[in-house]
């Protein structure tokens, strides 16, 4: 059931590791030790599961998408992370990291956010534990996502607009790391995906693997067996890693749907960014390119190092999905199933729609990780559909 453990240096095969200023190394080492210790302590694991159950809304159900299935000729099941508290899988990770923050005796967290989902989730978990919280958000994103900014403030967080670089997610990560240097003593950096320096990719995957564990049990207990395919969207890759974790040692094919404008596996090459070695989209001179995606959560030029490794070994496949396919997929899912998916999750839906009867043989069973709900995206979708008319 379990995915591979990283080696001593935090590598998954050739990828991962730690590429951070020396000032942060002690914190990374401390974090690794603290996580290892906590994660093998049944009391901590129990608390983590308890909070996710009583606060986070776990387990999330698996819904058989019967009308979409009939239409496409495949059996589709959705793991409903959209029903988790704050509207996506992000809550699993932040509950884990904030509990760990407390355990390490730190009193504050910082986080980066793109569209705001991870920022809202972090502010939420921090509020519950009474931790201070500052969220770094690209200035462009603060303008595009004013309401999420206000949501974080309601939750007691301070939101700092990041004015450097492209003023989006990539720069928010840079800025959060720069800030972490200044306050690492009492502050934990609550990273939002399976990326960054070791132990983050591993730790975040472990916290998210509850998705896959539940999903596997649920598929088995409803008599479906393991699905032929497991499909998830991939920005940094935390929701994908979480659900893959339940099926890594089965015969399920694992598919990660990347935004075509940020397809680090299809269009990237190995490189070093944000503390990790992974697949990145780069210019011909080794500068990191900006990603371009309709969905803020996939608007990242890299991918988590474990995914780079799974791609290299062929255990998982990563497929690009273009912006054009995403809106129709969101519409079809809404109309047929009464679930408005997040634009991120709609990438996975779009791939299934495109490939049913092709890369997905008719009659296959497909487990879709519905990583989040689309409420955050309806204003944007509305503008785009207006623009099309």
């Amino acid at each position, binding site marked *: 059931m379990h995915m591979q453990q990283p080696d001593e240096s935090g590598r998954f095969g050739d990828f991962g590791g730690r590429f951070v200023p020396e000032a942060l190394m002690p914190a990374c080492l401390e974090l690794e030790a603290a996580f290892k210790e906590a994660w093998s302590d049944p009391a901590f694991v129990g608390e983590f599961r308890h909070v996710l159950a009583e606060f986070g809304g776990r387990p999330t159900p698996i819904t058989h998408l019967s009308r979409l299935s009939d239409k496409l000729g495949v059996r589709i099941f959705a793991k409903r992370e959209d029903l988790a508290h704050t509207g996506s899988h992000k809550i699993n990770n932040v509950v884990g990291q904030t509990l760990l923050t407390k355990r390490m005796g730190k009193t504050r967290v910082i986080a980066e956010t793109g569209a705001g989902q991870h920022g809202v989730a972090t502010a939420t978990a921090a509020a519950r534990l009474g931790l201070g919280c500052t969220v770094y958000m690209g200035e462009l994103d603060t303008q595009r996502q004013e309401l999420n900014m206000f949501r974080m403030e309601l939750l007691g967080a301070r939101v700092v607009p990041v004015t450097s670089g492209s003023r989006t997610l990539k720069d928010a990560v840079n800025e959060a790391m720069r800030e972490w240097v200044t306050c690492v003593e009492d502050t934990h950096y609550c990273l939002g995906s399976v990326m960054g320096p070791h132990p983050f990719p591993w730790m975040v995957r472990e916290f998210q693997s509850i998705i896959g564990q539940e999903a596997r049990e649920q598929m088995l207990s409803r008599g479906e067996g393991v699905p032929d395919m497991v499909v998830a969207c991939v920005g940094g890759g935390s929701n994908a890693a979480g659900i893959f974790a339940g099926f890594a040692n089965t015969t399920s094919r694992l598919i990660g749907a990347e935004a075509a404008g940020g397809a680090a596996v299809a269009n990237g090459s190995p490189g070093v960014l944000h503390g990790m070695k992974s697949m990145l989209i780069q210019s011909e001179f080794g*500068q*990191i390119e900006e990603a371009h995606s309709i969905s803020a959560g996939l608007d990242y030029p890299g991918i988590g190092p474990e995914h780079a490794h799974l791609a290299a070994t062929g255990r998982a496949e990563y497929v690009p999905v273009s912006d054009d396919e995403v809106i129709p997929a969101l519409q079809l899912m809404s109309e047929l199933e009464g679930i408005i998916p997040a634009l991120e999750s709609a990438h996975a839906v779009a791939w299934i729609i495109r490939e049913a009867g092709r890369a997905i043989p008719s009659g296959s069973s497909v487990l879709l990780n519905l990583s989040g709900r689309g409420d955050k995206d309806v204003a944007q979708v509305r503008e785009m559909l207006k623009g099309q008319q």
Partner: protein
Amino acid sequence: MKSLERALRQIRGEGRKALVPYFMAGVTPNWRDYVHAAIQGGADAVEIGLPFSDPLMDGVVIQEAGLRALNAGTTLASVCAELQQESFSVPLVAMTYYNLFHYDGLERAAGRLQQAGITGAIVPDLTLEESTHWRAVCASSDVATIFMVAPSTTSDRFVQLAAATEGFCYAAARMAVTGRAAGAGDAQRVVDSVREVSDVPTYVGIGITQPEQARESSAFSDGVIVGSALVARVLAGDSPVEIEGLIATFRDAIDG
């Protein structure tokens, strides 16, 4: 021992504190004139910033300089090619992020530096643990690998980093990226920690913005690095001659 460390140890041997200014390559078409001017003003070595899209360890000033350089088309190759056309009377040290070397290929990147007359590299996101390959590649060249130590560095890491660094040890005065705050901060404790375990030259950086601060920090170290304070002047349009004058005031403060 690589040429950089020999040169820097000799400076210390002469009882002189080292002054190491930083300039961003490619920030203006005449960027190399600033390097010459700095040497004229009394620099003992010069840090050459190679611009990177995601400078994790830099504050707004150096970020801005990097952005200008990138927009002007500056690359690792272009900088090395430009430097190759000239020669400088003090050692040059590259400062950049690991991806530039990684993308180029480590052998090729090290070869470029060497040919450009760069004798050392500061790569703040290349941790000691991840540096094995790079250091192995540089072993056969004259490019030194310079490590940083910081106020958060633990005692075992002081031992390892001081042992591994070549040329000098970069002592960060504070927990911050470049250009954020000024003053000696924790520098003395950091320098002392290096000295307890090594006799490598140890220079203080991150926060040296005024000649007086340079004097203060050089009193308990082997030299100082001045970055954002100079880059800010370059961005503001100061001429090489003005920069030469500014460097000279640092020189005087340190020596006087």
